[in-house]
């Protein structure tokens, strides 16, 4: 059998030809991740570059929030400081949530396994001849995760504001009965936005950098009881960080899709009151 100068077929290792002797369906998890993440990237890219159908009163797509470019009327709750921006307004803001997720410790695990096969699964040899991990450019930039976390908190606050606005009364032209335009409104979109912002906050607050910053960095919990308490809460959330990452990925896409379908007139908002 041929030996190589690296990996499980190195000269000193037990001579076994197979890259892995695993008999379970180890490829299923990375394959699922690959398909779902790819589908999300394609969908998000198309929607981000579209530059339209992102606002249907009172709902604003999370991909376009805050809408700082030359946005449609009613969408810009924080002004339009980038009104000169010639491309889609989503491109101004998406870098922050995108950067947050790209440098996220959970997503790193998921995409290193599914896209870079490094390794594809535990005990399955990776195909690469050399490996330097996150020690060199560009992967050394993963260390800026906490900066994206700071930005993600701000984006989370904006999306929370959007969710509150989703309770706004509908304009007169949407009225379907007496008194429909007064008081607060709640539709299926409002519910979807509430679910979305819940998952976004669970994902943001369960972040490993958040856990570190609120208390994990300390050497003496005993001297910082409040931060210790915050750390225990963040730690509890952190155990399900991967789950929140998936849920919030789906919820953000579903809210955007719902707004798109409303804005294009494909469906009507399901209104509860």
């Amino acid at each position, binding site marked *: *059998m041929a030996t190589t100068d690296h990996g499980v077929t190195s000269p000193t*290792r*037990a001579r*076994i030809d*197979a890259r892995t002797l695993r008999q379970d369906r180890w490829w299923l998890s990375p394959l699922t991740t690959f398909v779902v993440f790819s589908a999300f990237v394609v969908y998000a890219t198309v929607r981000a570059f579209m530059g339209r159908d992102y606002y249907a009163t009172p709902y604003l797509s999370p991909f376009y929030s805050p809408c700082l470019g030359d946005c449609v009327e009613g969408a810009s709750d924080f002004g339009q400081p980038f009104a000169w921006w010639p491309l889609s307004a989503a491109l101004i803001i998406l870098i922050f949530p995108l950067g947050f997720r790209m440098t996220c410790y959970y997503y790193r695990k998921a995409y290193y396994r599914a896209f870079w096969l490094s390794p594809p699964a535990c005990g399955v*040899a990776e195909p690469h001849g050399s490996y330097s*991990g996150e020690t060199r450019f560009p992967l050394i930039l993963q260390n800026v*995760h906490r900066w994206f976390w700071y930005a993600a908190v701000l984006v989370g606050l904006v999306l929370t504001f959007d969710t509150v606005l989703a309770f706004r009364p509908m304009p007169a032209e949407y009225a379907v009965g007496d008194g429909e335009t007064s008081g607060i409104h709640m539709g299926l979109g409002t519910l979807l936005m509430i679910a979305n912002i819940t998952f976004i906050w669970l994902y943001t607050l369960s972040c490993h950098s958040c856990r*570190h910053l609120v208390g994990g960095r300390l*050497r003496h919990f005993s001297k910082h009881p409040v931060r210790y308490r915050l750390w225990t809460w963040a730690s509890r959330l952190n155990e399900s960080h991967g789950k929140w990452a998936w849920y919030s990925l789906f919820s953000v896409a579903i809210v955007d899709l719902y707004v798109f379908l409303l804005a294009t007139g494909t469906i009507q908002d399901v209104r509860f009151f």
Partner: protein
Amino acid sequence: MAYDLKLRVWRGDIEGGELTDYTVEVSEGEVVLDALHRLQATQTGDLAIRWNCKAGKCGSCSAEINGRPRLLCMTRLSDFEPSETITVTPMRTFPVIRDLVTDVSFNYRKARELPYAELGPRDADGKRRMAQVDVERGQEFRKCIECFLCQDVCHVVRDHEDNKQHFAGPRFFIRYAELDMHPLDTHDRRALAQGAAGLGMCNITKCCTEVCPEGIRITDNAIIPMKERVVDRKYDPLVWLGNKIGMRNKDNEGRTEV
């Protein structure tokens, strides 16, 4: 109830070897190590296995079962179908000595490169004091039985022999984390962890956590916190600015870089 188990065991040494098929009688409630011991007693008296406590506490019987790093003594035969062939090989990251026994001295070399705790001065009454809440944090890491399954599964060294020189591995990252979280230690190991121990080589794919028989959350509770501590030291401009204008984190006071 006894049945005939089909076992495929790697036999050989550094010169070469192969997977060899055996059939051995086993009983309900037994573990893979029991089957191997019966094989050794009845058919292959020269089969080399390293084992000791048979209770998952000594960390001796690490091997790979159907391609997955596991303790032989903690893998129940009832986890498999009676008709299934169970393949047992030595750990594929370390040099093989013979059959299922490997040379794990790589780990002892890495242990020697790690400076031990250097405690500060004692209190006036000659005692040292730590708060319970500070002590508890490191206890999870003390559960490590040094089976080196995490080192075995880590692709950084498993798939790249040349990285062994520059990479301490997950077992030692939990030691770095434990000492860095130690309330009385005076060493600051962050630069060492990033440099000589190769913390940046880890791409947090969590296989170490998956295989740990003690259930230590190696990645979430040790490696990522150590990575964040390295970020504190080197990649966080707010910390840098705080140090420049005298707003130091007092929790780091009294530590010297090693």
